[in-house]
């Protein structure tokens, strides 16, 4: 039955019903005595008549639409199902329609709408109670939700078979010709900046031009292959990806502490692009690299902000965790799928088929991930661990022996020799040991008279008896005063056997405090161990006690001092240079100690080689937290538990509530990287297009949903996506296609007037690519290029980065841009230790993203501060001088030669006569340094045509 006819029939039927008074009978007549209510015949027409004007395809008030099955089953904006199959009494849709005095009675009494009549209400009741089964027609409509272009499977048959074929077709339809060819030096420049973010050298331009004159296709092909194979390619393109995933190397928020080991992820991205890692593997590595032996890739998950300020307030804590996971969910959605899943945190997505539950399904896939460092384990780490067992055992024995051989504290101040003879190690935030000759004591007093700053903090104090037992555990402890009202810092933490800041004691007075231990009875004791933060990776090195005295007593009145700070080296003395102190040991003990220390050192070296993996900020993976849907996104309003899964409308998977963290992430990655996922390949090739041509085929690279842009060339997009998958997800294979296209060789300037007139008329934004778009260099290639001009650029690849900010160790980090730089700072800017939400004073003004949010497409603004920075900063003046020196050295002896060399280096072309003349005259009067300063400020220098 056709829908139209169906609807007409139903309408007639209801007219009859409404007036017949034989409702039940009529319903039965339609439905059959025992047969179920058929959705297509009775229910759907009723929805269309009463509801769909506001809850249908064109309008979805409260996010509810009744033309799609999932919508009422999931519920609208507030996530509560509107229909509970089998239970009309629990279905708000039924309640609102039936109870006309309800606050939410439907339809609303306005615009002449009338309530449903009893027969209609009865149809709904029966239909819901019978299980709310939707008919075939609804299954078709159900797809309407997914009608949006980007959710359709990739097209596989095409009307053209090359980039230029697709582009020419569209351009011709619009009555547009292609632009003429660009000059060879412009194409060379374009390729180098686009693929490397660095300018070509004059000889590279010359070589390209020579090849071009013989065979343009071959010249481009050779250059593209060479550029894609060089390490500078990965450095350039990794920076794009880092924009997309909001990567930075500090926490953000209030304290914004640096993450000194986060660079491993940056290096992973660079190397991955250089090696042309298949993009599907790139996805799997970043979401679940710990499964695939690529530990450092999961830096992706924790590349976002993290609030270091923690509080006992449970609501704040819950909000912080919700924000952390929100960041991971959002960036996973936008980076790989171009889906703003994050928008469904509080209510179902306004435009896209993502329910609020879907958000929590994806969140559950990531809920085992915590911010922090993890060891980067090699593939054979299990084997290595086995080998390490015996070594660790031996080490344990040696350590126990060495405990008896700590230097014995002397109460004498040590000499002035450097390092002082006999001095004990400086106090540390880690474990400190004070050993003394065994002495009987009932009371022990620890008096603090100075700290490294603030009130002193101790996370644990142990008193070791001659029988090697920690007798502090059972001691009664009193203090001179405790840090008020903070559950992290309590007096009973001093001997609770737990380490770390959150199990510590802090005095109530800056720089001083006193602890008194009553052991209950006299015990012979020999050592005191104490620390500020004895966790394996200490987070806290502040509030360290620097001056103290330990004394003991049997009666609580007569005290004997057994150790103090006076024979310790001053704090900050370079610990590595201090020989082990043997103070107070017998000759025999010294021999033993030396031997054991030697053996200990060699075992430690062996262990380091074997299992001493570097730690990196790539996330700590653990047991997944249970995830509940939060009503309106509010962590204080948890609703039903949600199992890990995909965005359900797009197919995919669901795992059990008890599935492991890694299984969840692997499943999520596999779903995203599946070749039949309609979004993944499209989103990637579009990003590539965006970075090659300035604007993507879809101009919203991280939003392929209904709120984002429409593709200017849908067929081309799919053609590229299919090629990507067929080429085993090789990114470089797509870039070869793009860079070798004719479109890529078009001029950006010097276009025929007729073309400009027509182009501005029909396609002023150049989406049809009737010329190549000129672009300004972004912040990073601009800095790199200035360094390349001056000859200062260091191509040192990988490893820890360099700083553009002055060092700072404040509790709340202060980021002060450096103005003086050394050679180590002249690496490519992708190697900057990039703090979050802090921009370099000079290059930050060039729309450099600050990683507070993702930046899939950079702004390009032009501001007077950019001009001031390029004109007046010390950086530019220094580089100008070095550029000038280089020109004198390499450019020739006369200023005319130097001008020529400068133009070839900076603009990839020789000067024209007038430029040559004016420049020469300027150098004569103002000098070569000033000439170079001007060159750095020219438009041609900063633009790529």
């Amino acid at each position, binding site marked *: 039955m056709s829908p139209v006819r169906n609807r007409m029939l139903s309408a007639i039927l209801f007219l009859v019903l409404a007036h017949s008074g034989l409702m039940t009978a009529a319903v039965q007549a339609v439905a059959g005595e025992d047969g179920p209510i058929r959705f297509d015949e009775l229910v759907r027409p009723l929805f269309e008549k009463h509801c769909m004007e506001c809850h249908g395809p064109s309008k979805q008030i409260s996010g509810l639409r009744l033309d799609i099955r999932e919508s009422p089953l999931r519920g609208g904006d507030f996530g509560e199902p509107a229909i509970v199959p089998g239970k009309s009494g629990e279905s708000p849709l039924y309640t609102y329609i039936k109870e006309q005095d309800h606050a939410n009675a439907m339809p609303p009494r306005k615009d002449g709408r009338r309530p449903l009549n009893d027969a209609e209400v009865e149809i709904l009741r029966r239909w819901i109670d019978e299980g709310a089964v939707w008919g075939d027609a609804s299954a078709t409509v159900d797809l309407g939700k997914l009608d949006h272009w980007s959710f359709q499977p990739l097209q596989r048959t095409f009307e053209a078979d090359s980039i230029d074929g697709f582009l020419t077709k569209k351009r011709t339809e619009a009555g547009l010709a292609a632009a003429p060819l660009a000059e060879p030096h412009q194409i060379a420049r374009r390729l180098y900046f686009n693929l490397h973010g660095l300018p070509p050298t004059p000889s590279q331009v010359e070589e390209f031009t020579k090849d071009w004159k013989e065979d343009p296709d071959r010249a481009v092909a050779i250059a593209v292959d060479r550029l894609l194979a060089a390490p500078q390619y990965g450095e350039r393109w990794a920076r794009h990806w880092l924009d997309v995933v909001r990567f930075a190397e500090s926490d953000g928020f209030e304290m914004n502490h640096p993450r000194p080991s986060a660079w491993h992820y940056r290096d992973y991205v660079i190397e991955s692009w250089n090696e042309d890692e298949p993009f599907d593997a790139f996805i799997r590595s970043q979401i679940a690299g710990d499964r695939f032996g690529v530990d450092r890739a999961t830096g992706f998950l924790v590349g976002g902000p993290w609030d270091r300020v923690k509080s006992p307030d449970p609501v704040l804590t819950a909000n912080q965790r919700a924000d952390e996971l929100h960041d991971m969910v959002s960036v996973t959605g936008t980076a790989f799928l171009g889906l703003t899943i994050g928008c469904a945190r509080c209510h179902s997505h306004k435009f896209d088929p993502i329910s609020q539950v879907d958000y929590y399904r994806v969140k559950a896939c990531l809920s085992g991930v915590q911010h922090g460092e993890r060891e980067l384990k090699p593939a054979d780490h299990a084997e290595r661990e086995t080998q390490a067992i015996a070594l660790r055992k031996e080490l344990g024995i040696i350590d126990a022996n060495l405990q008896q051989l700590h230097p014995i504290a002397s109460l004498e101040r040590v000499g002035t020799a450097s390092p002082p003879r006999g001095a004990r190690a400086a106090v540390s935030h880690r474990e400190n040991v004070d050993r003394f000759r065994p002495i009987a004591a009932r009371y022990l007093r620890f008096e603090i008279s100075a700290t490294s700053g603030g009130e002193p903090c101790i996370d644990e104090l142990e008193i070791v008896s001659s029988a090697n037992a920690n007798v502090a555990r059972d001691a009664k402890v009193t203090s001179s005063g405790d840090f008020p009202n903070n559950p992290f810092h309590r007096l009973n933490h001093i001997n609770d056997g737990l380490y770390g800041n959150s199990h510590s004691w802090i005095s109530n007075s800056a720089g001083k405090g006193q602890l008194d231990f009553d052991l209950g009875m006299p015990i012979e004791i020999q050592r005191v161990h104490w620390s500020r933060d004895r966790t394996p990776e200490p987070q806290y090195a502040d509030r360290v006690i620097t001056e103290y005295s330990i004394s003991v007593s049997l009666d609580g009145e007569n005290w004997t001092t057994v150790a103090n700070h006076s024979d310790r080296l001053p704090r900050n003395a370079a610990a590595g240079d201090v020989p082990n102190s043997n103070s107070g040991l017998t000759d025999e003990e010294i021999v033993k100690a030396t031997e054991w220390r030697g053996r200990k050192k060699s075992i430690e070296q062996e262990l380091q080689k074997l299992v001493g993996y570097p730690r990196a900020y790539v996330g700590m993976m653990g047991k997944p937290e249970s995830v509940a849907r939060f009503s309106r996104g509010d962590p204080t309003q948890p609703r039903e538990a949600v199992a890990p899964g995909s965005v359900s409308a797009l197919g995919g998977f669901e795992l059990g509530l008890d599935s492991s963290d890694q299984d969840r992430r692997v499943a999520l990655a596999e779903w995203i990287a599946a070749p039949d996922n309609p979004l993944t390949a499209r989103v990637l090739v579009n990003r590539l297009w965006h970075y090659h041509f300035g604007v993507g085929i879809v101009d919203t690279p991280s939003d392929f949903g209904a709120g984002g842009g429409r593709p200017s060339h849908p067929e081309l997009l799919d053609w590229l996506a299919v090629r990507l998958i067929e080429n085993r997800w090789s990114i470089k294979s797509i870039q070869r296609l793009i860079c070798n296209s004719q479109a890529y060789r078009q001029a950006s300037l010097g276009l025929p007037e007729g073309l*400009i007139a027509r182009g501005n008329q029909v396609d002023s934004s150049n989406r049809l690519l009737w010329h190549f778009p000129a672009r300004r260099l972004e912040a990073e290639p601009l800095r790199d290029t200035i360094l390349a001009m001056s000859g200062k650029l260091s191509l040192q690849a990988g490893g820890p980065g360099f700083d553009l900010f002055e060092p700072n160790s404040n509790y*709340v980090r202060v980021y002060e841009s450096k103005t003086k730089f050394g050679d180590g700072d002249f690496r490519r800017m992708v190697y900057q230790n990039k703090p979050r*939400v802090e921009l370099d004073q000079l290059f930050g003004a060039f729309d450099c993203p*600050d990683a*507070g949010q993702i930046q899939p497409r950079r*702004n*390009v603004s032009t501001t007077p501060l950019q*001009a001031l920075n390029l004109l007046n900063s010390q950086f530019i003046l220094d580089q100008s001088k070095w550029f000038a020196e280089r020109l004198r050295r390499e450019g020739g002896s006369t200023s005319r030669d130097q001008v020529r060399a400068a133009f070839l280096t900076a603009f990839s072309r020789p000067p024209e006569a007038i430029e040559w003349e*004016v420049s020469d005259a300027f150098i004569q009067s103002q000098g070569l340094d000033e000439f170079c300063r001007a060159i750095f400020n020219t438009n*041609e220098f900063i633009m790529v045509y």
Partner: protein
Amino acid sequence: MRNQFQRNKSLSPTGSLFLDRRLFLGCGATGLGSIALASMLGDQSLLQRVRGNGPPIRPEIDPSKPYASRSPHFAPKAKRILLIFVSGAISHVDTFDYKPELVKNHDKPMPDSSGLITFQGEQGNLIEPRWKFRPRGESGKMTSDLLPRIGELADDICFIHSMTAKSNTHGPAENQMATGFTLDGFPSIGAWVSYALGSECQDLPAFVAIPDPRGIPQIGARQWSSGFLPAAFQGTPFNSDRPIPNLVPPAEIPREKDIATREFLRRLNQFQIDRNPQDEALAARIASYELAAKMQLAAASLNDLSDETDETLALYGADDTKNTNKARFAKNCILARRLLERDVRFVQLFNGSYAMGEGVGNWDGHKVIEQQYAIHGPILDQPVAGLVTDLKRRGLLDDTLIAFVTEFGRMPTFQKGASGRDHNPSGFTVWLAGAGVKRGYSYGATDPFGYKAIENVATIYDLHATILHLLGLNHEQLSFYHNGIERRLTDVHGHVLSELLS
């Protein structure tokens, strides 16, 4: 040489004609759509695709003049704004929110508060204000002796006592007051305003941030960040101690040399225009260099206070030789006035610095609030009172809006075992003064102890919506497409607090 250059210039379709905005916005037949324009407006054409509360109204931005004055959505009450940000969360119960019940119940437990855990932990007893409250002005508004001079201006002030914040930790809460969002990375209110309105002043940045002489606020540059808006709209930070960075070349370059270099640069760019008259991005860059040159002149005189009278210096307390932090902050206040006088659109003045640590250089009085505020009060009071007074007597208050804000309030209780107050986002005071707001008016109220806002509960979204409204902007229509969403300063919230409009 020179003649040839001039001849070239006269022959080429360049110069002022080239910079004519019609060429940019009209997509003239001879020019290519400027990349700067295209990118600046980015995908803003997407507005057609997004349904919302009324279509977004896009500012018409000429990339060669990003700070050009632009039309508001409707006639504004205020032409410019001074936002005073008091960092660290100033205690409302010790300053502007008078609570007789708090005095009466001094040292008693707060009712229904057992087990209450706030940011740093458990609560002790209610503690009366550490400073006496007295009636001020003709309105008799009760304010405390901590800030007596600001109190004396009560007849000019519109207090909002029922402000609430979403977070009780400084970072996210400062983010929210500065950008509307607790998360990092969103544009600051100053960036939104300069994006929408540009500036009446063409030789200074549209948006200036004046950090406290003791250092920057807790979230640093995020207070004046442009987020995902074009960088042109980020705030330029400088104060009386630290001028605009790179404003002038280092001393090693004499002025004549500098002028010669810039002239040479102009000519090199001119040759390029002559060859490629279609290149409109170049025009925007030339304009930016011209604006930079003007800014050098205008900004250089900003911090030269030699033309201020002794009486003015004394009014602000800039002559206070005993309290140097106060004198330096006072100079920042004078700088703020000088910027407003020159029609800078958005001036953000900071009091308090976080770098010095909790409560030391800011209002975060957890431990010994009385001692700490005794230091901060005098630094803030006279300079800000002087600034408001000075703006008023110069007639600037008629079309300037002042907003005095902080990230959240403090508890009416002391923290257990301490002599200070913990964070309290449930109710606190901010105030407005000047163009378009009621004078001597108090809006909203907290409960009898000052813990929670209970009457006319207001949000930061409401405050932002109101500020935008006073500047002639509809907060629902001022938006920028970013990452799938029409982003607004007020997210999807906010109501103009119309009751306090004059």
